[in-house]
């Protein structure tokens, strides 16, 4: 009998669990384990990590036994164009200020959609930025610089 992955979703989910469990379990060994009466910082995470590894392995092994639907591809472009601008927002927030950070966030993320059109995206970015400044900075008084130090 040939060994084949019959349930790809479970296979990968199991690997993620196993890897996370191993990572947490190994890292936890840097801390004091303690005793059952006086649990150290490593005690509970180690127990959890062992359980997670067991469940992860079981899930992966089961993937060779039961059938499951195929794994659909990941939307790489959309992923990059949504997560990228979020990270960028964090990076430039203090330097460029909220206004510029928001404009960048909206413009780049809007590009992730298949229906992106400049003529829509530009007014959208300006409108959302103005709205956010009005509500969060002027209305709620959140302490975020509107214009960052890079422009001063």
């Amino acid at each position, binding site marked *: 009998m040939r060994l084949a992955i019959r349930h790809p979703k479970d296979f990968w989910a199991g690997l993620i*669990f196993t890897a996370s469990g191993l990572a947490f379990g190994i890292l936890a060994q840097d801390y004091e384990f303690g005793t059952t009466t006086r649990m*150290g910082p490593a005690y509970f995470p180690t127990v959890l990590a062992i359980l997670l590894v067991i469940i992860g392995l079981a899930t992966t092994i089961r993937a060779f036994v039961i059938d499951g639907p195929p794994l659909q591809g990941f939307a790489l472009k959309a992923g990059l164009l949504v997560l990228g601008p979020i990270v960028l927002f964090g990076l430039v927030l203090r330097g460029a200020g909220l206004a510029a950070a928001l404009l960048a966030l909206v413009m780049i993320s809007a590009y992730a959609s298949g229906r992106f059109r400049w003529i829509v995206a530009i007014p959208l970015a300006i409108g959302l930025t103005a709205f956010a400044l009005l509500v969060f900075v002027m209305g709620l008084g959140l302490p975020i610089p509107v214009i960052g130090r890079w422009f001063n």
Partner: protein
Amino acid sequence: MELLANLAIGIDAAITLNNVMYCFAGVLLGTLVGVLPGLGPAATIAMLLPITFTLPPLSALIMLAGIYYGAQYGGSTTAILINLPGETSSVVTAIDGYQMARQGRAGAALATAAIGSFVAGTFATCVIAILGPMLARVALEFGPADYCSLILLGLIASVALAHGSLLKAFGMILLGLLLGMVGADINSGAMRFTFGIPELSEEIGLVAVAMGMFGISEILHNLEHELTREPMVKSVTGLLPTREDLRRIVGPIIRGTLLGSALGILPGGGAILSSFTAYSLEKKLSRDQSRFGKGAIEGVAAPESANNAGAQTSFIPMLTLGIPPNPVMALMFGAMIIHGIVPGPSVMTERPELFWGIIVSMWVGNLMLVILNLPMIGLWVRLLRVPYHLLYPAILVFCCIGVYSVRNVEFDVYLMAIFGLLGYVLVKLDCEPAPLLMGFILGDLFEEYLRRAMILSHGDPMVFVERPISATMLVLSLLALIIVLSPAVRRKREEVFQEEA
């Protein structure tokens, strides 16, 4: 007449011009965001949390509670009009609600949802007012071991709500618990899993996790198959249910309310479990089961009443025991901590105006939901027609500002992106995010109570079986486990989750 005196304190605190306005604003904003496809109550609350930071504690909590009901109701509106439930608890509403909308009876469906929610909300508010103080008294008897077993029950119960494989749901809980360990250990001060990043020393921010797993990952998911989602109806007319409708919905509303109130109290239960159970119950009781799935008004009335009642009574474990039973309550829990209030039995004795004020405001919020929503349905319908490619950049703006403003650190923005990615990947692998979030929320409480229990018992695990409260919780956990694992229930569970697909 202690109850009346208590309610008077609450009315005094909650019915001020300011607080009624915040309640109104909360319900309005909550509905506004909740109506948007793909944003459930947890994401909505996480997004709007920063708005409440500058308010006094009671006003903030009143507004947040309003946001919660609003989002819940908004989700039902979306479910009925475009068959796209914004949250799991309105999944069953979509089954018959959408069919009603297709038959031109959207108005009646929406009105039924509103009436059902109001009746349920009123009843559940009374339940909290009566049961809350009693439970708070019981809570004083709770020792660390009892809390531990209660948390275990909550975690196991949350598995029952997950889609698909139970094994993976348990994996998600454990992963969540481990993520909850990140940060400074309360007892020893050891920095766990922080990689020397100072922003991680407190712990991973709940808002970042919730927004990432529910908000951002949802956007990624939706962009993958960008669809046009035109609402069935261009305008909603005929809001008033007919006499025949009213006759049909009385029973389901009452049954849904009772069921929802009871299930909402259970940790891990809340709105989702209630609506599923109420729907199956009505289907079973109906003389003509074939009507269900084809626009039976009972199929809207029962789950809508149940999910609102459950949403409401799920405040009980948080307010009395200090244990958040679901992700939404965890966010409320976080909000209370931000305002310097530690949820638990002491809130009622030390801050009675806060406790009773929240309860009274719940009823006010439910009233507003009806007053606000029925006349404004036209507006919600128009909102539903905003195309997604204009909507998601706006959601991103709110998420980014929101998560940043919790602590004013950029790191939380990055964390949100990471959890967005994690959520996206895990959902692709059919792993539900809800159990992970439950584990994450309860992780450090679980550890803390476990440690205390072990110190008190000198490391003897028998303490969990010997204490009656703890033993009861363990028996319930075991029962929950057996029920979830039993072949009959498993088949049933798959059926229910199949129906929604």
